[in-house]
C-alpha cells in the first residue's frame, strides 16, 4: 500500500512544486541535518556505504514515524502521551501473531493499524467529546495500553515474520524500503495539508475560537488528529518489530520524550498552528544521527549528555537565528 503511494507521488515531489512551503516549515531542520551529516561523513567516510545508509535509515524510521504521528496532535494544539503505550501494545501484538510470509506481514500491518486507530479514537473521544485535557487523557490511555502490553507478553520475545524482518528492512531495486516509506509519508503530508482537513488542523491550532466561528468543526478536527497519530504510532511499532525482530512490553518507553523532542527540534510549535510532519521527520532523523555523530567524534562516555543537550539547544537557536535573519531582511 505504501509502495503504491510512493510510486504515484515520487515524481511529483521530485519536481518540487512546493519549495516555498518547504522553506517555511522544514528547510531549516533539513539544513541542520545536512550539516550534521557532513560532519559525520567527514569523520567516518564508511558512513556512505549502502549498508551504512540502509542501517541508519532503518534505525531512524520508528522514531521518525512516531514523531510524525505526534505532530498531528501538536499542530491542533494538543498533546499526546499515548505514543509510549500504543507502540508497546502494537509491538507485542505483532510479536504474538502466528503469521508468516508477505501476507502475514500484511495481516500484521492491518492489526497494527486497527489497534493504533482504535486507541487514537478513544483519545479523540476523551479529548474532543468529553473535553478532558489532552495531556491527562492520553496519560491515562498510555498507562492502560502499557498494562495491556504486559498482559499479552510478560517479557521480551515472540516471533516476527521473516518477511518483515528481512524484506521490510532491506532494499528494493537498490532503494532502501525505509526511504520509500519516508518519502511516502512526506508525500502523504504534502497532499494532506492541502486538503480541507489539513488546513483545518492548522487553523484550529492557530486560533481555536476563530476556527470555530469560521465554520470549522473543531471537535472533528481534534478527533481525527488523534486518529492519525494513533495510526502513525502503530506504523512505528510495526517497523520497530521488523527492525528488532521481536516484541517487548516496554518497547514504547524510549519514544515518549524522544518523539516530542523530535517534533520540537523540527520547529513545530507546542500549542499548535505552526509546523509540519516533514519537519518532524527530520527532527527525529537528526536525533538518531546525533547518536552516530557523537560516536564518531569519540564523545561517547560520561559526558555525552552534555554535548547532546548543547546540540539540541544550539539546533533550535540556529533555526531561530536563521528565521530572524530572513525576517529582518524582509523588513529591510
Amino acid at each position: 500500500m505504501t509502495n503504491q503511494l510512493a510510486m504515484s507521488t515520487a515524481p511529483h515531489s521530485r519536481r518540487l512544486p512546493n519549495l516555498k512551503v518547504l522553506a517555511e516549515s522544514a528547510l531549516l531542520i533539513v539544513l541542520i541535518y545536512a550539516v550534521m551529516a557532513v560532519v559525520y561523513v567527514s569523520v567516518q567516510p564508511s558512513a556512505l556505504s549502502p549498508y551504512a545508509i540502509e542501517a541508519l535509515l532503518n534505525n531512524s524510521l520508528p522514531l521518525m514515524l512516531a514523531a510524525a504521528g505526534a505532530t498531528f496532535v501538536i499542530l491542533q494544539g494538543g498533546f499526546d502521551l499515548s505514543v509510549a503505550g500504543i507502540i508497546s501494545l502494537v509491538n507485542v501484538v505483532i510479536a504474538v501473531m502466528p503469521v508468516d510470509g508477505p501476507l502475514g506481514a500484511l495481516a500484521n500491518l492491518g492489526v497494527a493499524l486497527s489497534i493504533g486507530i482504535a486507541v487514537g479514537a478513544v483519545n479523540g473521544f476523551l479529548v474532543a467529546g468529553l473535553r478532558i485535557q489532552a495531556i491527562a487523557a492520553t496519560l491515562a490511555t498510555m498507562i492502560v495500553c502499557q498494562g495491556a502490553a504486559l498482559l499479552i507478553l510478560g517479557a521480551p520475545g515472540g516471533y516476527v515474520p521473516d518477511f518483515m524482518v528481512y524484506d521490510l528492512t532491506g532494499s528494493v531495486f537498490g532503494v532502501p524500503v525505509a526511504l520509500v516509506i519516508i518519502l511516502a509519508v512526506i508525500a502523504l503530508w504534502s497532499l494532506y495539508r492541502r486538503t480541507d482537513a489539513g488546513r483545518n488542523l492548522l487553523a484550529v491550532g492557530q486560533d481555536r475560537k476563530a476556527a470555530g466561528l469560521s465554520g470549522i468543526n473543531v471537535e472533528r478536527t481534534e478527533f481525527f488528529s488523534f486518529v492519525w497519530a494513533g495510526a502513525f504510532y502503530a506504523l512505528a511499532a510495526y517497523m520497530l518489530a521488523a527492525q528488532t525482530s521481536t516484541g517487548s512490553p516496554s518497547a514504547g518507553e524510549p519514544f515518549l520524550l524522544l518523539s516530542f523532542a523530535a517534533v520540537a527540534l523540527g520547529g513545530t510549535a507546542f500549542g499548535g498552528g505552526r509546523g509540519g510532519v516533514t519537519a518532524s521527520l527530520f527532527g527525529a532523523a537528526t536525533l538518531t544521527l546525533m547518536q552516530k555523530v557523537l560516536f564518531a567524534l569519540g564523545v561517547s562516555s560520561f559526558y555525552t549528555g552534555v554535548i547532546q543537550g548543547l546540540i539540541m539547544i544550539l539546533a533550535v537557536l540556529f533555526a531561530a537565528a536563521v528565521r530572524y535573519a530572513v525576517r529582518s531582511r524582509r523588513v529591510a
Partner: protein
Amino acid sequence: MTSKSKTGSAILAAFVGTTMLAGAMTPADAKTADGKWLIYLSLSYSGNSWQSEAANIVKALAKTAPYNETVELVEVISGTDPQAQISDYESMIAAGADGVVSFPISSTALNRVVRRGCQEGTLFFMYDATVTEQCAYNVSYITSGFGENSAQALVNELGGKGKIFLSRGVPGNSVDERHTNGAMHIFNQYPGIEIAAEYYSYWDDRTTQQETAKALAAHPDVDGIWAQAGEYGAIQALLQANPDRLVPMTGENSNGFRLALANPDYQAKGLAGVSAGSPPAQSGFAFKLMMEILEGKREPLAEGERNIQYPLPWVPADAVKLCEGDAFENGCNAFPEDKVPSSFVTEVFNPELLPELSLASALDGQPTEGATIQALPADAVQKAPDAPGINCRQCEAPEDIYALTKIEPTVQP
C-alpha cells in the same frame, strides 16, 4: 551487505555462522593501526552502583599490565533505548572493533546487529544480561538459580508458613521473570506461604523503600520479604514502619544489606536471611575470557556452547565477614560502612577469577598497584543451561531448571 538468508534450518545457519566466524577470526591481523586490540565497553546506562562498578572493573583490568600496552578500551554509554545501542553496535562494527564487552539492554532486540558483528569478525561478550543470539557469548549468573535458592532460604527461615512480599525488578524484563518464576516454583509448594503483596522496585534502593512502605500500609503483619536488588530499601521501610521489628528477608549483594544481616541489633529485631544475586564481577570475567580467546590462548567455543554460567554468590547471615583491606581476602565479603556507600554491590571480587582487583578498581576504575593479569583457571568456563528467551531462542529448558543448588529444604510442605 544484507543477509537475505532466511533461516530455514537453525542448524544450517549455526553451521554457516561458525564457519564464517572461524574464517573471519584471524587474531593476529585484527588489531588497530597502533597494534592494540580495539575493544568497546558498551553499557546500557551508568546510573546505579551496580552498572558503574561492572564498568569500572573492566576499565581497571584494561589498565593492568600487560593489557595497558595491548588493549585500547573505548567506553560507550547508550542509555536505556535499545535503538541507541543498536546504533552504537553498528558504529563499533564499522570502526573495526575486535571485541565488544557489553551489558545488553534487550535480550532479543540486538540479535540482528550482533549476528552481523559476528560475521564481520567482532567478538561479542555479554555480561549479566544476555542476548538470545547464539554467536554471542553470555557470561551470566542468571541461570544459576537465584530465585529458587533464595526463596527456599526464606521458606526455611519462616518454617514453611507466613505472609510475604515479593519485591521484584522491572516489569516486562526477562531477568526479573526468570528469578520470579524460580521463586514461585518454591513458594507454590508451600500452601502455608501467602504472597500478600507483589510490587516492582526497579532494582533500586529508594523505589524498593517506597514500594515496601506502601505494601506495609496494607500488611503491617508481614512475615518475610523476598527481594531482588534494592533490598536495603526494604530494611529501611521496615524500620520506618516499626523501629523494633524486622522480618527474615532475602536479597542481593548490597553492602548495606550484608552489614544489616550481620548486625546483632537487627538480628535481635528479627532479621535473618541470605545475600545472593547478581555480581558485577561478571564483567571482569567476560572481559578476561574474551581477551584470552582474542589472543589465541583459549579456543573459541562453538556456537550453542557460548552460554557461560557465573557462580551464584551465596552469603547467609552467619557467613558475613568484614574485610580489613581493600579486597576480598581470607574469605571476607563485606566492607565497613565508612568505606563504601550502602548501595555498593559487594560482589566485585573473585579471588580465583579476578585476583587483580581491589576496591579502587571497583570504585574508580583504577588498576591495583603491582598487579598483572593472571590467566584464568583452565576450568573457569562452566556451561550454562538453556533458558528460552534468555540465552537461546528455539530451545527447551532442562527439566530440573529449578533444582536447588545452594540450600536444602529444612521444612517439608
